[in-house]
């Protein structure tokens, strides 16, 4: 058996520090140099704050979706993914970091340091008849929900990972069956909270607007990003000489997930758009009007990267078994889904002060990416790369499609 103890290569470690440095410098620079396109007294470093929120959410969501995927593998009692289970676990444990960053943003919002969320501003809420009616949903009730999501998700992720590690030294499969139950309950919790959390944390930026489909749309996006992270890490580790027990077919299956969920995302994105476009009700269509007027190139870019790219490039079987190609497409779609979150946050915060993508987006993204890679690889190095005593391990080792 090969080397199961991953060590974080020094070169890669230095690389993540460089990325984090770039991020930090560009965030500070954004606070200094970011000025509104036209004079506006309500503009307080909005773009810099919005970028921090976008990246916090994007990478937190990757951890969350990986935790969901981990629970799903248990609940579905699937065998194919057993060899990459430790990769899924490592990505999932970015969740506490991501949630801490989100919590920091919420606290700063509550204390009026930034103004991304209108509902933290009581005066503003009271002067709007529509928002007065929504007061009960925000305020303390919003905080209760937020804390509930965070505690619930971290509890399940922690338990799933702990049981998985403990099972390595166990003599029977009881911990595995415990995880199956845990995974199933997590699916129930996640089904509700993935939707409501995206309403509370992203949809509430456009405070007048609402869409019941929004939660699934956000969820499908985070799911792809998480799968891509897993693929890229698996391919990278294989290149370093680890994980040679992960068959080509397992990576192929991950590629299929990337392909399939891209269509789930497209389906939901288009469904949301088409219904609002067709009904054309002023209070609903405003969401797309803002995007159409100030963000049209980005809107089309996001749609085509995330829909056409996977459709054309990942349809054939060979493309999903070619690691180089899979990595390339993965990178492209990963950036595409980051831009998707940009499209959710920017129009409601920066609005018509938007001047197009610039270093203010690229810098923080690289910084958070560095943090993400650093945390995930540190997680990976802390436990063996292969599970032991897993009832489906043998099936996964011989996985062939």
């Amino acid at each position: 058996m090969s080397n199961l103890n991953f060590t974080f290569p020094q070169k890669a470690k230095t690389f993540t520090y460089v990325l984090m440095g770039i991020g930090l410098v560009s965030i500070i620079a954004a606070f200094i140099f970011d000025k509104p396109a036209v004079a506006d007294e309500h503009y307080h470093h909005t773009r810099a704050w919005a970028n921090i929120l976008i990246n916090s959410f994007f990478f937190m969501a990757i951890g969350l979706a990986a935790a969901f995927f981990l629970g799903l593998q248990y609940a579905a009692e699937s065998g194919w993914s057993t060899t990459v289970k430790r990769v899924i676990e490592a990505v999932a444990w970015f969740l506490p970091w991501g949630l801490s960053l989100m919590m920091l943003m919420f606290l700063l919002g509550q204390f009026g340091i930034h103004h991304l969320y209108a509902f933290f501003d009581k005066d503003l809420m009271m002067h709007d008849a529509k928002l007065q009616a929504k007061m009960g949903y925000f305020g303390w009730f919003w905080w209760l929900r937020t804390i509930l999501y965070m505690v619930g998700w971290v509890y399940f992720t922690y338990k799933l990972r702990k049981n998985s590690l403990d099972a390595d030294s166990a003599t029977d499969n009881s911990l595995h069956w415990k995880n199956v139950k845990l995974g199933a309950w997590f699916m129930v919790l996640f089904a509700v909270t993935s939707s409501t959390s995206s309403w509370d944390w992203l949809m509430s930026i456009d405070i007048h607007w609402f869409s019941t489909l929004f939660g699934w749309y956000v969820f499908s996006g985070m799911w792809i990003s998480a799968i891509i992270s897993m693929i890229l890490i698996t391919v990278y580790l294989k290149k370093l000489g680890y994980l040679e027990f992960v068959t080509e077919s397992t990576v192929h299956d991950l590629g299929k997930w990337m392909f399939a969920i891209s269509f789930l995302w497209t389906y939901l994105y288009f469904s949301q758009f088409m219904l609002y476009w067709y009904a054309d009700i002023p209070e609903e269509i405003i969401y797309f009007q803002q995007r159409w007027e100030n963000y049209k190139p980005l809107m089309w870019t996001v749609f085509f990267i995330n829909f056409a790219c996977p459709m054309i490039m990942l349809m054939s079987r060979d493309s999903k078994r070619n690691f180089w190609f899979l990595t390339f497409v993965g990178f492209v779609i990963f950036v595409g889904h980051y831009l998707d979150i940009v499209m959710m946050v920017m129009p409601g915060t920066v609005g018509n002060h938007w001047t197009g993508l610039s270093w203010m987006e690229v810098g923080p993204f690289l910084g958070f990416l560095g943090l993400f890679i650093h945390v995930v690889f540190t997680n990976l190095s802390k436990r063996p790369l292969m599970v032991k005593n897993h009832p489906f391990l043998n099936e996964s080792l011989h996985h062939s499609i």
Partner: protein
Amino acid sequence: MAATINKKIIHGIYDDEVPLLEACNKLKTAGIKIADVFTPFPIHGIDPIIGVPRTRLAICAFIYGLTGLGLATLMMWYMMVSDWPTDVGGKPNWAYYFNIPAFIPISFESTVFCAGHGMALTYLLRCMLVPGAKAKNPDPRTTNDKFMIYLELNDEQATKADGILRAAGASEVNYKGTITETLAY
């Protein structure tokens, strides 16, 4: 001028797919042509060993899908734009491209419908699985728990194949008569 050659029909029966795969590999190495393999379920990775070419069904699916897309577009254009333009929800249909979001769901459904049905029908016709078709399975036990290699070989090769089949762990090797093949010059 024509010459005839007598070939033996051999059924190599196995209880499991692993020895069957091993036997297939060895037969291939020995240069013996495998006529067919009958198994209760699909065996992954057997296609290149027994020389089954890659399916072209995907190409058919693409063509059927395009046909479906074209038909749907033609239908909707004729109904909604050409023949009787209607104002639906404040969206007058004076040009097809103008209301494209409204036409996408039907285009999608028609594409999937035609690709799916076209593929199924092509598959059934290509395999001659039409109503009333006779089962071509030479040994019905292969639909239950047996795995079979089907060979048509001349005497010299048959002796060689018999040894390989048994060495790989065949539970039975059955001879089912001969067929006469005409070789044309």
